């Protein structure tokens, strides 16, 4: 039987270790102020039991609010003199531990409190020193424990500091003990039984303690004590009162209200010289019997099973939160990618490499020209080029004399510059949109992060023009040249002449600030035609030319292909560089909620849930 117990214990230990490894990764999803109490409690108990051979120890803790009388009771039970007078409160800022002689060896004691720092007690004043580590236990040997009863030789008695005193660290120290104790003695002044904090702690004790005992102290008489207790028990069942707080079920199937109602309750009359004999049971065995008369293995197993159940409950809750968070992160990331796609399509829709199209047409048309035509066109090209150069120089000299520097047009933007400018605007619009969405609040998109993400996007080289589009362009140009031989012949010459003339007109126009062609450029930019590329004013003329040269259908097809391919490339570019930069928190969530991790947790939970309190020790 004992081998079966140890085998189950080993399984539980393994499951707990898995949870201790995996659950901290998901700590962000715990409610604020909440701890994985069941997990920690189970870990301590299995460690304690696994480390000993033979009879496991029973840890009995005195737990309660300030001024309840815990230290007085500890002194009487253990015979160890700890500060318990009334002069100074709080009376202790650390835990006192009384051990029977059989447990005096620190090496034997250490595994019983795996998270504690054990120090010899010395004089009681050490308990009053402020700022002590939360896990420190001041231990002293108490031979009188062995004399309390048959179980006294494995009874380890702990005096926990108050959980509601002015030293906030005391609450944490007390909690450390709550998570370890098998027998919890809840010590409470009788007139504080309905203080909200005390009721909350009683509910917690009922949920976590293997065995619960209640001592009502500083009573006027037993009538007062039992009236108060009956009032409390009545409220436990009242859904409008304390019912909801005590509704949780434990591993043994009992709800916390039942645990409290059935707990052995004692009362202790206020006295100048308190004695153990003054502690009266309402019914049943004495307090000493409740502490030192237990079967250690049975109680220890109940403790392990109960804590395992709590640990499984904690893990299930966290697992559900992880799945929820993972789903939300997945949705969030998908929406970022969808936004990136739309942005890519918008950027692609704002540009059209008209210059590239015309170049392709001219190139194809030129290649289709008969050789004799070139003999004519080359000198014409040369002539107009020379006129352009001479006129430009003359204008510059005239302008300097007239104190008018040649008004060069602003550095014109090529397609990449325009694309980068539009990308910058789109990136900012996306970032502002994401900042304002409550479902993306976890991205933490503060200003500096937004700026970095945008610059990362702009610094990355733009995707090149796709081959699919270039091939489409070539094919369309060839088709147009084949379908319009007459226009195709004149196209190269017309383009040279008009470009030269357009530039010449610009030079002439310089005397008028802006002038007709400048106005055309401005109107073109303000309009929604989206016609861009280098060479400003001549494009207005080209616009009219296109409509009359049977190019409309070709333009539509080329435009459609451009939009499709460019949109896809730009979407991928934005997704890689912008979304990749901002989505790190979402990716972290998805990393933490990996399917393998969730599966391991699920398996560990299954093992813990099968560790019923009956178990191998049930009979």
């Amino acid at each position, binding site marked *: 039987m004992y081998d079966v117990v140890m085998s189950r214990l080993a399984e539980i230990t393994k499951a707990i270790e898995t949870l201790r490894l995996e659950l901290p990764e998901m700590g962000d999803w715990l409610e604020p102020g909440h701890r994985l109490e069941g997990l920690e409690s189970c870990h301590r108990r299995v460690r304690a039991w696994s480390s000993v051979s033979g009879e496991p120890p029973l840890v009995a803790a005195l737990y309660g609010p300030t001024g309840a009388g815990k230290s007085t009771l500890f002194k009487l039970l253990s015979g160890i003199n700890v500060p318990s007078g009334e002069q100074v409160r709080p009376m202790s800022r650390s835990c006192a531990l009384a051990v029977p002689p059989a447990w005096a060896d620190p090496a034997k004691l250490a595994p019983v409190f795996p998270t504690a720092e054990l120090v010899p007690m010395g004089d009681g004043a050490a308990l009053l020193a402020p700022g002590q580590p939360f896990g420190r236990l001041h231990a002293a040997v108490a031979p009188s424990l062995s004399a309390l009863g048959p179980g006294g030789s494995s009874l380890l008695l702990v005096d926990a500091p108050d959980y509601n005193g002015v030293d906030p660290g005391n609450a944490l120290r007390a909690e450390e003990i709550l998570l370890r104790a098998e027998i919890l003695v809840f010590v409470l002044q009788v007139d504080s039984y309905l203080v909200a904090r005390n009721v909350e702690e009683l509910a917690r004790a009922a949920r976590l303690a293997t065995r619960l005992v209640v001592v009502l102290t500083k009573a006027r008489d037993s009538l007062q004590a039992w009236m108060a207790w009956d009032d409390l028990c009545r409220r436990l069942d009242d859904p409008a009162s304390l019912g909801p707080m005590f509704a949780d079920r434990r591993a043994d199937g009992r709800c916390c209200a039942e645990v409290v109602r059935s707990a052995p309750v004692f009362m202790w009359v206020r006295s100048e010289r308190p004695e153990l004999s003054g502690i009266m049971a309402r019914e049943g065995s004495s307090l000493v019997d409740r502490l030192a008369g237990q079967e250690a293995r049975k109680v220890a197993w109940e403790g392990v099973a109960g804590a395992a159940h709590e640990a499984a409950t904690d893990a299930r809750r966290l697992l559900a939160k992880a799945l929820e968070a993972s789903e939300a992160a997945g949705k969030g990331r998908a929406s970022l990618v969808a936004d990136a796609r739309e942005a890519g399509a918008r950027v692609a829709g704002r540009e059209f490499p008209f210059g590239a199209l015309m170049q392709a047409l001219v190139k194809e048309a030129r290649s289709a020209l008969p050789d004799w035509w070139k003999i004519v066109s080359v000198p014409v090209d040369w002539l107009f080029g020379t006129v352009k150069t001479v006129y430009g120089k003359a204008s510059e000299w005239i302008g300097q004399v007239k104190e008018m520097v040649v008004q060069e047009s*602003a550095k014109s933007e090529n397609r990449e510059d*325009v694309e980068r400018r539009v990308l910058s605007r789109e990136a900012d619009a996306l970032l502002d949109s994401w900042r304002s969405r409550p479902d993306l609040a976890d991205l933490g998109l503060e200003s500096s992060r*937004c700026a970095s993400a945008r610059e990362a996007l702009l610094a990355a080289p733009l995707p090149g023009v796709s081959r699919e589009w270039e091939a489409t362009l070539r094919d369309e140009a060839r088709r147009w040249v084949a379908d319009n031989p007459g226009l195709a012949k004149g196209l190269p010459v017309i383009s040279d002449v008009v470009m030269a003339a357009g530039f010449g007109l610009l030079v002439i126009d310089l005397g008028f600030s802006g002038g007709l062609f400048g106005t055309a450029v401005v109107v073109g930019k303000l309009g929604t035609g989206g016609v861009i590329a280098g060479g400003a004013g001549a494009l207005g003329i080209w616009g009219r030319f296109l409509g009359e040269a049977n190019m409309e259908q070709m333009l539509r097809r080329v435009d459609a292909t451009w939009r499709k391919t460019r949109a896809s490339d730009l979407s991928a570019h934005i997704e890689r560089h912008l979304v990749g930069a901002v989505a790190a928190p979402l990716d972290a969530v998805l990393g933490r909620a990996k399917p393998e991790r969730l599966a391991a947790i699920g398996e560990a939970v299954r093992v813990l849930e099968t560790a019923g309190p009956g178990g191998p020790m049930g009979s």
Partner: protein
Amino acid sequence: MADASPVQESPAAWSGPLARQAVELRDSLAQVAGNPAIDKAVAGLSDALGALRSDRPRPVIAVLLGGTGAGKSMLFSDLLEQPGASPSSDAIRCHTSAPYIAVHPEDEPFLGELGGWKATRVRGPSRGVVLVDTPDVDGILKEHHAATRALLERADLVVFVTDADRRANRDLLAELSRWAPRHRWFFVLNKADQHAGRVSEIVSDWDSRLREAGFEPDDRSRFAVSSVVADDPGLGRLRSALLRERDGRQVVLSRNCAFLQTASHALGSHLDSALDRMIGDLARREAEANARLRDAYASALREPQARRAFLLVTRQAAWRHLAERAGFPLGWAAWVCARAQGLATGMLLGRAIGSGAGVLGLGLALAGGGLVALRGLLPFRRVVESLGPDFRRLTASLERDIRRDLEDIGVEKLAERPMEAPSSPEPGDAVGAIAAQVDSLVRRFWTRGLDADLMAQVESDVEQAASTVARGAVGGLAGLVALVVGNALPLLLGGWVLIRLWMAWYEANYPSLGFYTIGLSLLAASFLPGLFLLAMLLGARLNRLDVAGLVALAEQPRPTDPLRRAREGLEARRRDARRLSQSAVNRLEEVRGELDALGMGLSRRLMPPE
């Protein structure tokens, strides 16, 4: 002897101005969004102002505060010497579920808000003071807490009741700290009989708890009492201290004290630290943005085309500055040179409107006006455009980054540009009105798509450069020569013409029209050498102008003005908060002294932030 009714004394002369300052400061701090320390200060100032709300005359309200089982109800009954006045039970807890109010019959008509409370009334022993027994603040019934806190909002005096076992209870001491800044206090350690022989040590330990909470307890404010001991001296002292007859002046003083204490607490160093942090953050971001913009601007201006555009516009502006420096009459000629076009436009417009010169005249005037407008704006637009697409993208990005910075810190409202009163021409100035309208329309059209702050920055830099160049052109030996020659020639020629004219008129030998024509022509021509020299000097200065260096001289690039406005807004609020806090602290000592002398319990000293 107290008056028959608790007469309301008029508020102190200082309280009105301080209250107004508090209201203004609260409203201005409320414009900062989402900062916990500032939100706390705003709430604190609201609480402080609430303390000053005027009631009809009423008695002093003293409220018992304590945990369940502390013995408040028993104490209430004992103080009134009326057993069972507020029934209690030592077995069943959370017994008091509604307040009990002890009020003297003569004070009944003056209970004010308290009169409307659902409470049990018992007879109070003294005029001018009402004693209230409250439900507990730490039991399981939340409605008890709410009822007690609502009563505490209206209290002048609070009697904190505890016992030896609970004196180190953190939750009860936290409740004390919560209300401490706003009230005057008495402290009662109840059930002292349970620790006979150790009371003085227990009281001494308790005093240390009270000192941690910010009080300096003494025998006039802290009492150890026992209900079960007959003629308990502590209870007698407490009764005398608490239930003495009081007048309305104490109510006013108490309210003023609550206002000053709460305001001081609200404006404590936590607010100062928060504002310091925000101001530091804004200053850092402002410096970064300025540096980023200046570097990019200087770099863009180093490009040849940007530099050329900048110099072109600077040359035009420099002629205006030369007009102020060139002396007389050369300055007059420079002025004409700079404004000839504008004068022509004005003349044409005036003719068109005044004498109805017809469509042609109006057309000429409009064309000329359009050119003036374009010359004024388009050059700046060209400079901005010549800075290049990268620079324009950077300024657009910077504007967005600045807006986000302001949103993150919560100071968008402080960064808004102040409304400027539209400048309007003088009545009757029809030409000015039309010119202003034309200018406004053209300006709006030609500045579309460009950042207004950037245009303003460029304009400012051009003016600065023009001033520098103009100053340099006429400074030095060469400038002096140009000025001397430029002014002397017209003066000499003009003087000779005037002398000849005068002599002719004197001799009645009136010159012919040709004399005048030639004279005016020669006079006009005499300006040319001076103008030519100025043009050459101007050109030389322009060629040497360190454009990028000018950028570094600019105090604050305009595009980063929102950060500056936000920072200055916070600095103003910090100044106001410090001023109000100091005034409150100064007044507080005075008011506390008065209340101490009147036996109105104890105030908490000003505490460092939690």
